[in-house]
């Protein structure tokens, strides 16, 4: 089992750092899955996260100049590691002006992901900073626990409003209530609502658009015959939503959510090279 990778391009490095920062805001520990083509950050320890789970996927070719991976065995050419993303975030934080960043899986006394940052210096040789991030290697028999979650059979799928506005509103609502109701319909309307003894606040978003999903039988029949105006809703922990929005440092290319009435909200945030899915269950 081997892993070595290198990033030389500063823009790629900064983009990668931003992604790690977002992951670090959502999960205290998570799984890093390495395959030949992709990296995945997975959070599925549901009980510990109040039921929320995360699946983030990136194509290694968009970030790394060198990427060599050998999995546990030929037919299982993957590596699953458990780590604290905050460590990785810290290691990359001070690498903003690096000449190169190398990553390597090592096992001197315990498995570590060694991040070596080569920094410019006034002297003849570069400055090197190494960060040994402790990781746990997940054995193959446990890999099934970390499969990609399927898209739920949702009642409504809708594009999210401008994240900056959504973030401000949710942050204020967080001061007023612990729970928030997200409701949306097939006419591109979404409402965010909180209600307590003291106050009710509802924010109305219009003209958001509903993404077209092809259904399994090849036609978009699920929408026909349904009342386009009727709202599907789910009441969720407002803190989880706020964390998701606070972690977004750059506007995604596409942002949408799928709501299963009173069951779960499934967020999908797509950037050019990375996709993030976040599942927040409804409070019963």
């Amino acid at each position, binding site marked *: *089992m*081997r892993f070595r990778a290198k990033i030389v391009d500063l823009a790629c490095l900064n983009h990668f750092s931003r992604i790690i920062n977002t992951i670090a805001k959502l999960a205290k520990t998570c799984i890093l899955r390495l395959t030949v083509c992709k990296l995945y950050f997975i959070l599925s320890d549901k009980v510990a996260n109040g039921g929320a789970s995360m699946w983030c996927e990136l194509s290694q070719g968009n970030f790394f100049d060198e990427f060599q991976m050998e999995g*546990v065995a030929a037919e299982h050419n993957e590596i699953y590691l458990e780590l*604290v993303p905050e*460590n990785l975030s*810290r*290691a990359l934080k*001070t690498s903003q002006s690096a000449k190169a960043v190398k990553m*390597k*899986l*090592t*096992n*001197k*006394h*315990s*498995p570590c992901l*060694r991040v*070596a940052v080569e920094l410019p*210096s*006034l*002297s*003849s*040789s570069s*400055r*090197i*900073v*190494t*960060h*040994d*991030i*402790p990781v*746990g*290697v*997940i*054995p*193959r028999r*446990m890999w099934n626990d970390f499969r990609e979650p399927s898209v739920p059979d949702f009642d409504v799928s809708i594009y999210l409003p401008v994240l900056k506005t959504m973030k401000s509103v949710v942050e204020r609502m967080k001061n007023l209530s612990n729970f928030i109701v997200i409701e949306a319909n097939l006419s591109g309307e979404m409402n965010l609502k909180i209600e307590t003894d003291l106050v009710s606040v509802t924010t109305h978003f219009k003209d958001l658009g509903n993404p077209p999903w092809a259904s399994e039988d090849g036609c978009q029949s699920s929408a026909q015959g349904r009342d386009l105006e009727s709202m599907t809703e789910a009441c969720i922990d407002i803190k989880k939503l706020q964390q998701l929005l606070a972690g977004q440092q750059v506007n995604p290319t596409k942002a949408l959510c799928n709501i299963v009435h009173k069951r779960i909200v499934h967020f999908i945030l797509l950037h050019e090279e990375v996709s993030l899915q976040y599942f927040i269950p409804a409070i019963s």
Partner: protein
Amino acid sequence: MKCVIAGGNVKVLGRAVHSLSRIGDELYLEPTESGLSLRAVNSSRSGFASFLFAPLFFQLYEPGSAGPETELFRCKVHMKSFLGIFRSLPSLEKSVGKCLILLKPRASRLVLQLHCKYGVTKTHNLAFQECERLQAVFDTQSCTSHLCAPARLLAEAVVHFPPTLAEVTLGTGPGGKISLRNYVEDEAEPSKTMVTELWLAEDEFQSVAVAPGSHITFCLKEFRGLLSFAEASNLPLTIHFDEPGRPVIFTLDDTVLEVHLVLATLSDLQSNSQSPSTNGVSHLPAPSDDFADDLESYMVAMETSEGGSERPPSPTFPLRAPQPAQSEPEEEEEEEGAVPGTPPHKKFRSLFFGSVMTPGRPGPATTQEVLAEDSEGES
């Protein structure tokens, strides 16, 4: 004592106070013929700092008169109170034109008066306590290793470590490289803590004269205070150190200012037979591309391990065996003059103290590092 500080020097004084506040809870003021000395010591007596401002630093400097039987007046004040006066450095720069310091022994008050913009005057009357001399005896000449670097280099180095990191290990490696590494305590699970190490080339320093293979571990938090002062004043920082366990001395020099920071270092209690990667002994080579990669055998061991659920534990670290503190003659003196205080880190030996020193300049090299106790209660 009466002195006046004008213009940009007020901010310099403010920065010095900020630096000293990182060390101790009390600020010692000692006017001498060669200038005004501000000092602090930490509660476990393992850190000491002094700033000596020469008479030229001041617009007016009158240390007071010392008769044949009386000494120049010394006192100590609460650090928090003194710091409060200089808390906002930007506003000091913006609005304060002059600072007057007046020691009024008979009124039991230390007066600090700031003359500000728009004719505004801020007068602080601080309570003080008389005290004996707080003096550390140290001799930079007797240290085996010396490093001198622009403050900026060291500031760029410590930025890679989290602000909360308590201790750091400074070491020398092959090729003359100098390393900095975060210190992980024995009690913390070594396999759970991230280890960061930074390597600096010899030619990044202004001068390097170090014993090969040497290393010391000291408190980073206390050092950061001095580092920000050095960076702001654009002064090069010199580090004098010796064996582990002997104090490290940081110095800054200027025409009107002399700064010393003395910190205890961790004793090297482990035997040399221990494996190289445990903290405290940096036998690590400078990083290259060929790291040993033993994951294959590790994975084999994991796949074949029995048992229900969890992944097998990582191979254990050889643990450092705690050893009793070395007994040296100074220990006895420590009992006499020791002031009980909870050390911030149990492992740091206190820079212990002996009897009260007679007034005068610090003596030349002695083999002991002694901090004289300010012993108001004792005679």
